[in-house]
């Protein structure tokens, strides 16, 4: 085991790394929680247009605490603002954008991602859990590329990147790329494949914390 001082990327650094991979002018849906940080790290010279599935394209940052409009909210039901060129629309239109393949990218959190791209991010399947799914299943079914942004391990120290998901699925074979505190990893026809390690993180350190083999040789190809 590598020493416990090996920390990898912070949440903000993961968000910064995700943002680097998003092209100027992309239409992007950011999931609730850690993916929301991406909006704070847009590279200079690029503009992303944010879609929030409750009915707004051109979502802007949160207003100051206590400010804003209680009926101008994001999918997490928090107050947001709108950018110049924004548009409001109903839910059928919003999910036509999603299911119809009009959005370029969805960035989602995860409970588990499998080596074939299966995603579980809505329920642990626990008996006492209140089932709630929101728009996650529509997003993974319809958006062109699905990025997952997550800690590499659970709080209990279990791998989130696994051979097969044990939690109920959100979608089958839907994840394109995974960004964690330790590495950037692609989902390929041959399974997980390394794109990039966080600074100071050895490959073996990542592999030990991953529930399925990671192809190491992919990294050079992915950067070409």
């Amino acid at each position, binding site marked *: 085991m590598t020493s416990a001082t090996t920390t990898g990327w912070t949440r903000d650094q993961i968000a910064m790394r995700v943002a680097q991979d998003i092209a100027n002018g992309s239409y992007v849906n950011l999931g609730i929680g850690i993916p929301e940080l991406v909006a704070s790290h847009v590279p200079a010279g690029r503009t992303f247009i944010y879609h*929030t*599935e*409750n*009915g*707004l394209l051109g979502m802007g940052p949160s207003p100051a605490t206590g400010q804003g*409009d*209680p*009926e*101008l*909210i994001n999918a997490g*039901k928090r107050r947001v603002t*709108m950018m110049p060129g924004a548009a*409001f*629309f*109903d*839910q*059928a239109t*919003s*999910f036509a954008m*999603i*299911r119809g393949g009009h959005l370029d990218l969805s960035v989602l959190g995860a409970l588990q991602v499998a080596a074939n791209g*299966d995603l579980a991010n809505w329920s642990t399947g626990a008996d*006492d859990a*209140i*089932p*709630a*799914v*929101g*728009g*996650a*299943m*529509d997003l993974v*079914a*319809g958006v062109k590329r699905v990025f997952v942004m997550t800690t590499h391990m659970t709080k209990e120290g279990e791998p989130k990147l696994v051979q097969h998901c044990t939690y*109920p*699925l*959100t*979608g*089958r074979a839907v994840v394109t790329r995974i960004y964690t505190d330790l590495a950037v990893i692609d989902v390929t026809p041959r399974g997980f494949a390394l794109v990039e390690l966080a600074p100071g993180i050895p490959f073996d350190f990542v592999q030990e914390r991953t529930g399925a083999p990671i192809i190491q040789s992919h990294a050079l190809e992915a950067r070409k």
Partner: protein
Amino acid sequence: MIDKRFDSAREAVADIFDGATIMIGGFGEAGSPIELIHALIDQGAKSLTVVSNNSGTGLVGLAALLRAERVSKIVCSFPKTAGSTVFPDLYRAGKIELELVPQGTLAERIRAGGAGIVAFYTPTAVGTPLAQGKESRVFGEREHVLEHGIRADFTLIKGHTADTHGNVLYHRTARNFAPMMATAATVTIVQAAEVVEAGALDPEIIVTPGIFVDRVVHVPSPALESALNEAGASYP
């Protein structure tokens, strides 16, 4: 002369019957027709099936309707918003049935119901527990599940401005499910902060055309769920 105005929320919901299916607009508190819901609580109809994206927060609005045990089933995509305790308690006690539907599928099922489309195929939820027991079919090498349109007896929605013909405009993200729900019920009831004469609204910007609306109630200063909850309110 057409005039769809009703004098009060109480009169507008008076004929809602036991066992009715009711669509209720809103995504969280945005677009939640609280005054119509409170009038429905006062009216007393029970054994209702409610179609709504969420299940309400605190002890007001939709949460209050559930707490009064008037709802036997809810069709919903996300019934556990922060601050939502009424639904989880009823659900765990086995006092309410939940049909969990992905949000986009819920929107499209309502749209289909209102548009005369009995059912449709969608790739959403394939391979998940929410597709279990549903008919599926492969189109273009991709599996899809069959989902059915939903219709209701009544729809309760919140507009911002309505005219006497029932044309409706909404406020920002309060629009959400309301335009589809308006099309999918036998009787659609709109509460609006502003009600104007037919002809006052630019026909180019109408969001819900009046053909889908049966009753308009003027609610000049609609309450907000968050403000009521912060004040510790409960209804009734």
